[in-house]
């Protein structure tokens, strides 16, 4: 579905990613893991075009994304939830969700989408009129993911979805991701907690120093010596 070939990203004079390639098959959950500063977030931002300069080839269902600006990705079926949620703090929960369906083609089904999303996240129905900035971290993450779903995406990209969440919320978000995936949405996410990420995903990419160190099915990665010794402390 999504194919990234040799993505390299520079922030001004500093290169952050070197030749990163990854593949997200239809309907799968793929994770990008690695230590802090390895470039995990940059991979997602690079795919979306939220970086100053990038090189490489990115295709989505055969369409070349290299020159497509970020704001046009939603219409193509790609939704990205950025790190630290990046909600519109001055707007209510309901308005944030509405913004998720901003594109004209999505607005026609606004009411149904809102109903669907609120069924997945019952909390949001209660907090509809509250300012997004006043919610707790976990609640904000809910809103962010819900907002991402409002455009009926086929690929959902989540940048550090578990950052700053309580263990209970982590479980909630993880099972939500499984539910969303079962309904046919492919998910690409990055995460620092290796065990959590590999248990949730079907395949993964380990990023170290801006390069892909190893990759493969999550099951294999969990068993690999590299992952076990460096990340699982065994």
């Amino acid at each position, binding site marked *: 579905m999504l194919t990234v070939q040799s993505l390299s990203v520079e922030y*001004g004079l500093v290169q952050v990613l070197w030749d990163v390639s990854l593949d997200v098959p239809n309907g799968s959950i793929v994770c990008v893991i690695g230590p802090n500063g390895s470039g995990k977030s940059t991979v997602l931002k690079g795919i*979306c075009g*939220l970086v*100053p300069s990038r090189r490489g080839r990115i295709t989505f269902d055969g369409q070349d994304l290299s020159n497509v*600006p*970020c*704001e*046009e*990705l*939603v*219409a193509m079926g790609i*939704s*990205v*939830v*950025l790190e630290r949620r*990046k*909600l*519109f*703090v*001055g*707007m209510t929960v309901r*308005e944030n969700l*509405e*913004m*998720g369906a*901003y*594109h004209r083609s999505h*607005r026609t089904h606004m009411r149904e989408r809102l109903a669907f999303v609120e069924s997945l996240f019952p909390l949001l129905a209660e907090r509809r009129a509250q300012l997004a900035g006043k919610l707790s971290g976990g609640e904000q993450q809910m809103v962010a993911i819900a*907002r991402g779903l409002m*455009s009926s995406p086929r690929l959902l990209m989540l940048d550090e979805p578990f950052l700053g969440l309580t263990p209970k919320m982590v479980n909630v978000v993880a099972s939500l991701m499984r539910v969303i995936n079962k309904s046919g949405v492919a998910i690409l996410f990055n995460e620092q907690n290796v065990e959590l990420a590999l248990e949730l995903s079907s395949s993964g990419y380990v990023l170290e120093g801006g390069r892909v160190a190893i990759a493969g099915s999550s099951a294999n990665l969990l068993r690999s010596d590299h992952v076990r010794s460096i990340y699982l402390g065994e």
Partner: protein
Amino acid sequence: MNLSASLVLEQVVNGVVTGTIYALVGAGLTLVYGTMRVLNFAHGEFFMLGGYVMLLTIAVIANPTAGILVAAVIVFCVAAAVQRFLLRQTHRNADATFAPIALTLGVSVVLQSGALLVFGETYQSINYFVEGTLRIGDFRIAWQRILIVIVGLGLIAILAGFLRFTMLGKAIRATAQDPDAARAVGVPIGLVHTLVFGISGALAAISAALVSPLFAVSPWMGTTLTIKGFIVTVLGGLGSFPGSIMAGIIIGVAESITVMLTASEWREPFSLLLLLFVLLLRPQGLMGAPWSRVT
């Protein structure tokens, strides 16, 4: 000094009149800063352009409403063009934080000297839209001034409604609150930038058109207004639309009261001191977001 009640009231109302103009000018600047993080040094020149378009239109069609509309539309287009073809290019290089400011300064110089070339060093004014004064006892105020407040506040209300309730308005607010998130949900922020810049120009033009009977139209009428606009914007809180409205009115009234109590030459320093005082206590302005979110 005879401080009769009606005199004080007159001064306060006059302050609200100038304050409404300041609010309109400041609101445009704050919207631009909020969505683009740019201080538009040519804003006063958009005001000046509005004044001249009004002047020219009135000479042809003696209808003030037509004049105001034409001024708004033309300056909207000029401002939008400036953003789309000039300002946007400097934005690409995120490194150069001063480039947009220098560019708007260049635009300001070109517009002002251009006006000087075309219209000369003249001061021109036009007739009042509405003649006569409202009198209630000893209190009196020209209807023209009341008109300014009504039209100005009406415009502000429309704009506020637009921002609050329409999808495009929400897109503008979203862009101001988080440009990356806005792009991620599909807001066409290039278009938003151009639109906001155009709107700010239109607001300035309408303000100029409204005051053209009271103050003469000249190539320099915009210079002090840019500074005044910045002061209103910072006092209200950069990027805060309601803040700029509030700040505009406050400064207008404060200036009026200063003139009443001392001489008119201290009018400016007073509002400046007021600004500094507020900034010391509350650096983010009256309604600005907390510091972590203001750059």
